[in-house]
Every structure is written in structure tokens, then in C-alpha cells.
């Protein structure tokens, strides 16, 4: 896969009068699924509007596929945009609106009807609603129509602002499935969402904004490592927790621990919350320690690895 950035910002700033929207930010976004995270007023919508060619930078540069997107049909042809706002032309029927949009996107008028029907099927909008005015649609149905218009011209970059808003759990799963499928087909997907656990499951790459600045970007794993520094919080369940704790102390790998109860049949098997000193060394030596001391490992999971934790720590 190419490592050329799909979106590249260089010292990008955007002001609204005296209000700063984005403050001298630089970042790269590569292919795949990337989550855009930040509290209200962080600059997410401003960034999305610049990426989709609705706003111009006040200073610096932002390029998509190597060129600036404002008033540039060549790159707008490669971008699909699903806005956060619930605004749709309420008088129009879903099919009518999408057919018009398809023709404006370069789909041949003769091919537009079939093309629109295929897209509506893909976003799983029930056929009984296709000829209804958009004003009669529920929020979830409107989200599907907005997603459909973003997919009309087979964009190579899909930008979605809060695409899960108003969707029921099944709808969210369906949208996640579509986005993963698009990413697998080679579409770059940038998703802004406040539903962090969904972004966590969906996006390997994260860009965190706060007060108009990029405070972190990269893979979730790398961010986690950066945050943890030289320690990690783990939950472990093994056959002899007391002995295993001693072994870890002796190996100078443990900063502290909490026992979370005995649930083994022999009364000597239970869970431990560990504060590990050097996660990399712990990871490298874990298998040897267990096998050499004949301890059976039943469960090992991180207590840190949540996007919510990363977000909270980064925006503190």
C-alpha cells in the first residue's frame, strides 16, 4: 500500500475574524480508516470543511491527493462528504434528490437511476422509503441518505462528520461494515465522531484536536505507548497469582499490584491488576517466565487501551 499521504496539512491555520479555528497545525493522513477526535470547538468541523473544499485556509496549506481542494473539481471528484448537520431538502424524494446529485457528480443521466438504486441498496435504505419526501424520514434514514450521496461518485476519500448520529445499534453496525468494506477496497475514510468506543473499534489511526491544535496523531497503539511511557496497567488471570507476582517482582518488572479475588477451584487461582514497569520487556519475557515456572495463563488484557483513556489524558 502506498505511504504517500492522502491529506497533508502544513502549518495550517484558519481564523473566523479574531476567533481561531485551527492554529498552525501540521499532520499527514494516510490510506485506511482514520478517526478525528476532539471536544466541541476543537476545530474538527473547520478542518473537515477545509478538506472538502468548503473553506480556504487563512494561512499554511492543506492538500488532498497532493492538491488544494478549494474550487478544484479534479480533487473534489475524489472526495465524498457526509456532513453532520441534519439538513436535507425536505420536499424532495430520496431518489429524486440523489439522481440530481448523481448527475451533478458526473454520472451520466442515463445511468443515474440504476446507479442511485444500487447505492440506496448498499446503505440499506428500505425500498418502501425511496419515493417518500426526505422530510418524512427518521434521523437514521436521513443518515443513510447522506451517506448514499457521499458514495455516489465512488470517491477515493470519504469524509464523514458524525456518521453514527441517530442510527440504532444495528444501523451503526451496518455503517461500520460499509466503512470497513470501503477501506478494504482502497477508499481512505476520515471519520469525526464523539462515540469513541466505535471509533476505537473502527479506526486504527487517530487524529486528536483540541483548541485548534493537533495534540496527537498516529496509530492507537503508538499513542497508547506514548502515553504510558514506561508503565502499563494490565489485568491478568493465572494458575498461581501469588507466585507469579513474586516472580515479576524478582524480575524487576512490577511496580505494584491489586488482587481481584480468588475464583479458582483450588483456591489459588485468581485475577490480578498489575502495574508493569517496562511494557516492552514484560512482553518479551512473559512467555519464558510462565513456562519456566509452570504457570498457566488464563487471561491477559490491557486496562489502558481505550481511546477514551487516550482522549481524556491528551485533552487534560
Amino acid at each position, binding site marked *: 500500500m502506498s505511504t504517500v499521504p492522502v491529506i497533508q496539512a502544513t502549518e495550517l491555520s484558519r481564523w473566523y475574524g479574531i476567533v481561531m479555528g485551527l492554529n498552525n497545525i501540521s499532520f499527514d493522513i494516510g490510506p485506511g480508516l482514520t478517526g478525528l477526535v476532539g471536544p466541541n470547538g476543537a476545530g474538527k468541523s473547520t478542518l473537515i470543511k477545509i478538506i472538502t473544499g468548503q473553506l480556504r485556509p487563512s494561512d499554511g496549506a492543506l492538500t488532498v491527493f497532493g492538491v488544494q481542494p478549494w474550487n478544484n473539481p479534479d480533487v473534489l*471528484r475524489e472526495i465524498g462528504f457526509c456532513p453532520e448537520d441534519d439538513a436535507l431538502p425536505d420536499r424532495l424524494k430520496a431518489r429524486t434528490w440523489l439522481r440530481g446529485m448523481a448527475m*451533478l457528480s*458526473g454520472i*451520466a443521466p442515463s445511468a443515474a437511476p440504476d446507479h442511485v438504486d444500487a447505492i440506496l441498496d448498499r446503505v440499506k435504505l428500505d425500498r418502501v422509503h425511496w419515493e417518500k419526501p426526505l422530510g418524512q424520514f427518521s434521523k437514521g434514514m436521513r443518515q443513510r441518505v447522506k451517506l448514499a450521496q457521499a458514495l455516489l461518485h*465512488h470517491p477515493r476519500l470519504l469524509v464523514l462528520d458524525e456518521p453514527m448520529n441517530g442510527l440504532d445499534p444495528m444501523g451503526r453496525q451496518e455503517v461500520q461494515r460499509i466503512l470497513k468494506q470501503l477501506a478494504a477496497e482502497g477508499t481512505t475514510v476520515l471519520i469525526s465522531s464523539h462515540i469513541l468506543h466505535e471509533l476505537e473499534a473502527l479506526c486504527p489511526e487517530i487524529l486528536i484536536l483540541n483548541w485548534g491544535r493537533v495534540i496527537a496523531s498516529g496509530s492507537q497503539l503508538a499513542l497508547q505507548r506514548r502515553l504510558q511511557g514506561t508503565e502499563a496497567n494490565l489485568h491478568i488471570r493465572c494458575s498461581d497469582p501469588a507466585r507469579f507476582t513474586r516472580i515479576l517482582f524478582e524480575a524487576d518488572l512490577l511496580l505494584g499490584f491489586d488482587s481481584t479475588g480468588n475464583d479458582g477451584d483450588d483456591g489459588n487461582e485468581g485475577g490480578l491488576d498489575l502495574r508493569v514497569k517496562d511494557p516492552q520487556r514484560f512482553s518479551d519475557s512473559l512467555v519464558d517466565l510462565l513456562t519456566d515456572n509452570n504457570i498457566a495463563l488464563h487471561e491477559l488484557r490491557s486496562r489502558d487501551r481505550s481511546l477514551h483513556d487516550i482522549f481524556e489524558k491528551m485533552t487534560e
Partner: protein
Amino acid sequence: MSQDPSILPAVNFGGALRGMWALVWAQRCTTGTFVRWGLGACALGFLMLLTIQSGEEKGWLGWVIGFYIQFLIPLTCLNVCGSMIRAEVQANTLSFLCTRPLRRHTLFLLQYLCHVFWLQIIFFGGTLGLFALGIVKQAEGLGALLPTMLLTQFLAILAWSALSALLGLLHQRFVVIGILYWLIVEVGLGMVETSNINQLSILRHIHTLLAQNEMVADMFVRQIADAPVSAAFVLGGATVFFLAAGAALFTYREYLPSQEAGQ
């Protein structure tokens, strides 16, 4: 999803125009619109029937020139074309259009053409209705006037609509600005007889075209000395000028609902 290369994007103006027309037509052709237009036409027809004596052409022409051409057409153009972009900004739906693979001036031009086409249809029907009413009232010379009237209103709608589209981009209070413009430039400056400044009035050139018909020429107090061809060129030139200014404004200015609220 279909990946047939024959339907992959290659935006051409004709296809985009059809797409925009599909949207404009669907938005305009609603029951509410037809009820409003129908009620307005009935009210106008009723007033004309009441106030025009049978066989009195001047009374009929007074309505056609004084109300329909000078007032109703420009005000409708102002309302329809002034809001063609502004309504999208206020409804927060402009982002769907601005993220299509089209240059912004093309988008503006597509909107203008579709709205103008809609207005031409409406006023073509309206004019035929007025002439039918004239026949009912036994006004004479209508057959000779009809081609002049249709050609003049065609050019007038192009020019008024282009001006209205520009005013709509300039400020959200475009209706107020448009009415002030109409009073100051069209009516005010257009009435000045001793200076070339009256050439700024679109209405003056419309009068020149209409005055090619003798029946209409008798109506005007002022002497019509301008050549009809130059009047038509001025209307065409004004249309191009207003459109170019509007396209340039839409290309360089950002339109955001948040700014709209604060304007």
C-alpha cells in the same frame, strides 16, 4: 455497488445542467407553489376584469406594462433568483452542492440557468393568460403586440434574474436592497431625461423594446429615441455583467450558515 467505468465521474455541463434542473424542478413544482401561483393569477385576473372596460386597450396595457412588466416580473425574479444560493446557505444544504466536482462559478451558472428557465416557463404562461384576458375584454392589436412582449420579457427576465442573483450573494437582505435599487436606479435615474445616467436603468431599455409596438409607444410620456437593437444588446450585456460579478463573488467568497446568522 456498480463499478462500471461507463458511469464513473466525468462531469460535463449538459449532464450537470440536467441534474440541477431535476433538483430545481422538484423543489419548485409542489402543490403549495401551484396553489400560491394560482391564487395570485386569479386575484390579478379578477382585478383586471373589474377595472378594464370592454374594448379599452389602454386599461389592459396599464396592467400589462405598469404592473406585470415593471413590477411583478422584477419582484418575482428578485425573490426566486435572489434566494437561489442564499436559501441553500440558510437551509444548510449548500455543502452538498459545493462538494460536487464542479467549479464554483459553474455551480452558480447552473443554478441561474435552471431558475431562469423556471421563471421563463411561469411568465410565458402568465403572459398568455394576460393576452387571453385582453381578448375577453375585446382589446385590439394584441396579435401584433404578443411577439414583442414575449421577446422583451425573455430578455427582461434574463437581466432581472442576473441582477437578483448577484444581490442574493451580496447580502441576506437582498429583497430590501433590490427594492431600493429598483426605486433609486430603475425608477429614479431611469426617469432622468437630460443625462446618459438614465442608461443604467434596465426598465428604460425594456420600454424601448416594447415601444416598437405603436400601441405601447403611445403610452409612454417620454419620447423613445433609442434603437431597439442597442436596447437588446444593453439588456444582454447587463445580464453578462451581473452574472460575471455573481460568479466571481461566489468563487471567492465562503458561504457558511454560521456567518449567515451573524450577518
